[in-house]
């Protein structure tokens, strides 16, 4: 993420001066310009995941307009196998950070879900009742689990960003 920001800054400095650069520098500059285009062509999952924060229990949170959407990561859904049932809380239920709020069932195993933050459940994904497989197929989008209010925004600082989470899961393998 920091690298991309740095590249964008460099391109902003370079582009007006391009015609006057010597050839090797022109090539280098054009390569830099090309690379700054990369963020715009990233796949959908990555674009969404730049806004995601992760817990060490492999849950993600996306915050939009003061509401947090919660789901499980690709690493988690792959480890689980085919989800056959989503046991989710009721709307209105108050959750503490790390409190167990439900379970996903796959091949006779119930895997518990832990709240990434403190807040109140405002919505549950009713699509999952008839189509629990969405958790496997679209874990960052259609397979979201619950939406909740964010009582302590500071709790989000303690969660991992995508890059840190990627490092974390590599350390587990």
């Amino acid at each position, binding site marked *: 993420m920091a690298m991309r920001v740095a590249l964008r800054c460099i391109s902003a400095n370079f582009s007006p001066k391009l015609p006057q650069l010597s050839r090797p520098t022109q090539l280098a500059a054009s390569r830099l310009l090309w690379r700054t285009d990369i963020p715009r062509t990233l796949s959908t999952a990555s674009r969404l995941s730049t806004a995601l924060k992760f817990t060490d229990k492999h849950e993600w949170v996306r915050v939009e307009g003061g509401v947090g959407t919660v789901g499980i990561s690709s690493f988690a859904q792959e480890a689980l196998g085919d989800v056959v049932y989503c046991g989710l809380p009721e709307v209105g239920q108050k959750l503490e950070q790390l409190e167990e709020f439900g379970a996903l*069932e796959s091949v006779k*195993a*119930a895997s518990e879900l832990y709240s990434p933050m403190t807040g109140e459940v405002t919505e549950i994904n009713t699509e999952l009742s008839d189509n629990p497989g969405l958790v496997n197929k679209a874990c960052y989008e259609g397979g979201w689990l619950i939406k909740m209010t964010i009582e302590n925004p500071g709790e989000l600082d303690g969660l991992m960003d995508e890059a840190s989470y990627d490092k974390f899961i590599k350390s587990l393998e």
Partner: protein
Amino acid sequence: MILRKCLQVREQSKACLQWARAKSTFTDLIDESGQSGVILKSMSTDIYENLAMEDWIHDYVDLQNRKILFLWRNGPAVVIGRHQNPWQECNLQLMRQRGIPLARRRSGGGTVYHDLGNVNLTFFTSKKKYDRNRNLHIVTSALKRLRPNLDVRATERFDILLNGHYKISGTAAKLGRTAAYHHCTLLCSADRALLSAVLKPTCQGIKSNATPSVPSPVKNLLDEDNTLDCDTIMNAVASQYNTEFGFSSPVTLVDPSDEFSFPGIHKMSSELKTWEWTLGRTPKFSISASFDLHDNSSRQNASLNIDIKNGIIDNCEIDLPPHWLPSDVRREFCMLLVGGKFCPNEMAVILAAFLRTTSQELKTKTYNLYQNVVSLM
């Protein structure tokens, strides 16, 4: 309590657990012993106490560098999976008549019948070391060590089959924050007739997304070989567990009703007994049924649609012509049901109150309607 602890000391051979220290909980003793492999056997045959023991070990014992095997048996009980619908899985009426309790596990999977002829095995590990196949291999190896020609095999669905056809074991698991447990049943000498009877649901017309069971033909190991009783099998599995992991753990008896050694366990077993957990945790479902109503001179077909959420009747519609039962009476009957538990006792109370306000001529018809609705519960 002291007597029980002395008995436990006699049970152990070379264990380092210091039972003499009166002020220690089970966790303290385990940690002090430094043992990485522990085998426990329950002194209780109460399903709720034993399920609570599992929860307690999972929640309070450090399983990061330790494995525990828990051996237990229960008096007759039906145990459903965490996300199951008991009305869809078993004959609740028969169970009530015979005093057979219903319990809901915290692990997934399907419905099983327990009695003293069934052995339960729970394998506790860290989440990293969770390995159901390895655990089932321990069980099949133990059985084959006892009887080398025994045809027992674990399947892809984590069942164990005898002679390639009869299910003798079913599996379920729960994965928590940092630890996991995998438990399975093992049919030694269970009452198969009662098993078939209680696992046959009587409620028809259920529409639900609860996890279903997959019925299978079953057999007892004792029928295959009359020396394979529960104790022999439990000892064999314990021994194989030690061999598999290089442990030398004796089998230690534990009392799941001992609040001193297991602080908080009583609250856990109480919670497992509540209606709110066993029946109220059923995923929302609906029933569409039709039945014939009778009075002294005629009969009438009626249809019923009920929605049940958290075990409470959310919506109730009965389709019945007004010549049989006036619409206002029928509507009032439905309205009384909404908000009540889907439970015959609760229905009986509601009906008694309702009948007091019903005219004499309608009492028989109303009672007949009630009987049909209760037959679904």
